[in-house]
């Protein structure tokens, strides 16, 4: 095989020219496109990171809000439960007080009625005794009794 120096030089020149042309025509635009694409990807990644960070912040905020809402609901439920217990306790106390008052009023009324009955019985008994005494004395008093009664009176008055 023969080596022609001129051919070799010609080939080298062809390669160099091809390199220069390709560099001028393809390399710079492609590189520019690649750089731009890389920059866009960086921006998209940064934006995605920002979104992710925002989403994590929102998630944390949401969890915090949810936790606060849960605690507030728990406090509200506890408060209502305590209020209900207090209300039930008050109602129970009121019912007990009312029952005691009813019993006390009943006892007082019974004692009053019993006292009135006793007094009425005494009055009726006294009236009956006096009436019986008057009937008996009305039949039994003689002139001598009457005279003695009158003399006794003047012995005390005089």
């Amino acid at each position, binding site marked *: 095989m023969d080596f022609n120096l001129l051919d070799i030089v010609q080939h080298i020149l062809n390669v160099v020219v091809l390199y220069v042309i390709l560099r001028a025509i393809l390399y710079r635009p492609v590189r520019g496109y690649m750089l731009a694409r890389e920059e866009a990807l960086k921006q998209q990644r940064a934006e995605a990171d920002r979104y992710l960070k925002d989403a994590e912040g929102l998630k944390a905020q949401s969890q915090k809000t949810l936790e606060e809402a849960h605690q507030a609901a728990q406090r509200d439920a506890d408060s209502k439960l305590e209020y209900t217990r207090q209300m039930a306790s008050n109602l129970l106390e009121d019912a007990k007080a009312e029952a005691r008052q009813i019993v006390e009023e009943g006892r007082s009324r019974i004692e009053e009625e019993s006292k009135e009955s006793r*007094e009425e019985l*005494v*009055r009726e*008994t*006294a*009236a009956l*005794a*006096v009436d019986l*005494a*008057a009937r008996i*004395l*009305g039949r039994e*008093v*003689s*002139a001598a*009794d*009457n*005279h003695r*009664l*009158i*003399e*006794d*009176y*003047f012995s005390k*008055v*005089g």
Partner: protein
Amino acid sequence: MALTGTLRIAGPYDEETIRSITGHFSALLNTEVTFSVSRDDSLIGGFTAIVDNKLYDSSILSRLGRLEQHLTK
């Protein structure tokens, strides 16, 4: 100065009883007393007399009234 009064007396009684009552009142009031006498059996026994606007009561009826008051106290 003589006094007059009204005397209600439960039966039975006689004139001696009336004279006795009149005598007692004359001695008690230190003057002569005369009575308008009427019988009142509701007194049961004894008498009531009103002399010089004063009431004198020896009746059994008033004693029974006091007894009833005492029993009901």
